């Protein structure tokens, strides 16, 4: 009997030591993406997770995608506490759009998170039916001045794309002529414009690329300050230089509020290394047509506020 108790105790001690050892050596951080597993954010997160072991002995990132947007983040916030090895993505869609249009959907606020890093930055583009022959902001202004109805295909009725379209045409004074046609995916929206169902579409660059290469659409402008610098759309004018409002699509990696600053700094450093990896940079630029855009807390807050001000100004055009 004594021998049995002794052996059980020894086994328990070994297990405890093993577990403690595991805990000290490397912590696994689960990164929850609240959007579709096939989406841009989920793919970038997966890529980052794959690279994490190459840059850190103490942190392993594990990517997970559970679509559900605010509902997923609600569950995440409810189930986690400070210092849990859990991370989540939020973007301007939740922090700046849903928080104004439908706050009841969100059981969390910005204060529930602590910012780790911005995973990428995407410049949306406005494409036009090739038959309209609109290739620049000047062409677009001339077209808008004709006073005809303007229809724009967007991915989702109250998405970032919808607000960018509303902000652009609204600031051109054509808000009352604007008809936003929501589609259920960005690819559908891109196809709609090439079929002539709508005159324009707002989408990620990668989502319009194929239609553009098949000459179904022209790319009019980019929703950024300056011209697009890289990729197949290099040289496309940014609307910012013409004085029109814009924002980039960003994806913030967040930890639970109250998480140890040291840990957050370690995570930020790891993401920094991953996002500086030449292979990752090349993949983001060439395949995903995204940009590496590491940010500070102040940058994030400025981005959220900028989008909020656009949403407040143009929500009547989008939500009616």
């Amino acid at each position: 009997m004594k021998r049995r108790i002794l052996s059980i105790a020894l086994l328990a001690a070994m297990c405890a030591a093993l577990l403690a050892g595991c805990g000290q050596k490397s912590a696994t951080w689960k990164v929850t993406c609240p959007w579709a597993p096939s989406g841009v954010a989920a793919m970038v997160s997966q890529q980052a997770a794959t690279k994490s072991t190459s840059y850190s002995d103490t942190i392993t990132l594990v990517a997970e995608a559970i679509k559900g947007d605010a509902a997923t983040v609600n569950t995440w916030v409810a189930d986690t506490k400070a210092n849990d090895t859990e991370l989540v993505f939020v973007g301007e869609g939740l922090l700046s759009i849903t928080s104004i249009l439908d706050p009841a959907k969100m059981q969390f606020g910005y204060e529930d998170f602590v910012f780790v890093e911005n995973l990428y930055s995407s410049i949306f583009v406005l494409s036009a039916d090739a038959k309209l022959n609109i290739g620049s902001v000047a062409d677009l202004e001339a077209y808008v001045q004709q006073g005809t109805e303007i229809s724009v295909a967007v991915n989702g009725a109250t998405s970032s794309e919808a607000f960018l379209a509303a902000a652009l045409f609204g600031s051109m004074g054509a808000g009352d002529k604007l008809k936003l046609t929501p589609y259920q995916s960005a690819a559908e929206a891109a196809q709609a414009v090439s079929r002539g169902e709508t005159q324009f579409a707002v989408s990620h660059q990668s989502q319009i690329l194929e239609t553009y290469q098949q000459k179904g659409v022209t790319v009019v402008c980019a929703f950024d300050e300056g011209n697009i610098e890289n990729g197949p759309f290099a040289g496309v004018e940014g609307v910012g230089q013409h004085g029109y409002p814009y924002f980039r699509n960003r994806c913030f990696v967040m930890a639970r509020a109250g998480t140890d600053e040291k840990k957050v700094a370690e995570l930020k450093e790891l993401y920094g290394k991953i996002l500086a990896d030449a292979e990752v940079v090349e993949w983001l630029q060439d395949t995903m047509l995204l940009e590496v855009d590491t940010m500070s807390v102040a940058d994030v807050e400025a981005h959220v506020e900028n989008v909020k001000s656009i949403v407040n100004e143009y929500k009547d055009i989008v939500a009616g």
Partner: protein
Amino acid sequence: MKQWVEQFNGRMDAWGRKLHEKEIRIPIDLVTGLAFALFALAILLVMPDQVAVSEKDVVNGRAFPTLLMTVMLLCCAMLIGKELYKLATKQPLNWKVINIQVEAKALAILGILLGTYFLSKWTGLFVVGAVFCCLGFLLYFRCRKKSYYVITLVIAVAIWAAFRFALGVDF
């Protein structure tokens, strides 16, 4: 223990025999028509509260559900009308016999399902619910083979482990 189980089963059998004799006959088409007509009316009633619309919409969010409930009401009216006509012309109605024993057994199965659900949810451990489910059904089927208990419980734990550790489902 064995004796207690025998006693319990005996009591259940006696109860089952009693319930087996009890039947309810319902005019099924009439009841279906009325139930779904009420359901459709209720949906139409709550529609303004449940579906917000904007003045800008060409076809708003209420149009499709309203159309559906109208079709449902029409179908219900046809069902009720048919049965009332039969009643007026003294033709036999469409009756359905519901056996109380069957319903009681279905409730017992539902109880096992609900038990599995609530145990998994409250404990946060799916495996607890899975074990309850196995035991519940084995007892429901009055299984006496010990090997079945072992096999089922091992499979239940294995399924949980496969989901939890191999597929990374967190429960």
